[in-house]
């Protein structure tokens, strides 16, 4: 899983019927110290995350194992809203 920050939303009317009712968000992977990296991913939200929150994103086929995502055509899902990240110093 990666840590990411929510950058924005995606609205799509014409989509696979199994995606109906799912919220799509644009997220950017970030480092554990909170600094941004490059790139972005469109991920399905399963927890009700909001703009600029730090979230946990699971990628690959595991993304559709999240509750409520069975058999949906997704490869990235937001599965948690991060409260804190504690990383030990070297």
């Amino acid at each position: 899983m990666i840590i990411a920050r929510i950058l924005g939303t995606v609205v799509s009317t014409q989509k696979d019927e199994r995606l109906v009712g799912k919220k799509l968000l644009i997220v950017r992977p970030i480092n554990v110290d909170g600094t941004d990296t490059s790139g972005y991913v469109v991920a399905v939200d399963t927890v009700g995350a909001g703009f600029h929150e730090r979230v946990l994103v699971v990628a690959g086929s595991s993304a559709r194992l999240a509750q409520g995502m069975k058999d949906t055509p997704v490869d990235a899902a937001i599965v948690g809203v991060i409260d804190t990240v504690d990383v030990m110093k070297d």
Partner: protein
Amino acid sequence: MQLARVIGTVVATVKNDSLEGRKLLVVQSLNANLEPQGKPLVALDAIGAGTGELVFWCRGKEASFPFKREDTPTDCTIVAIVDSESHVTNNGKGRRR
């Protein structure tokens, strides 16, 4: 599977119901000489590892197999703790494939 060092913890109160009660740890992957390699990842803990420990983790869909395999959304899971760093030998050579 890859060797990694547990370098921290992640707390997430709001999470997918299928992750309820699971422990999240930050792992830094290591090469065969136990030097950091690549970026840290967040892993689900299947065995009770702690910060500072040498572990190995598995990626992909198989990462959900230690748990309820059809209901646990994880692509990175800690599956074993290495007993001692002296058990990891590479004869001082470069990265082993």
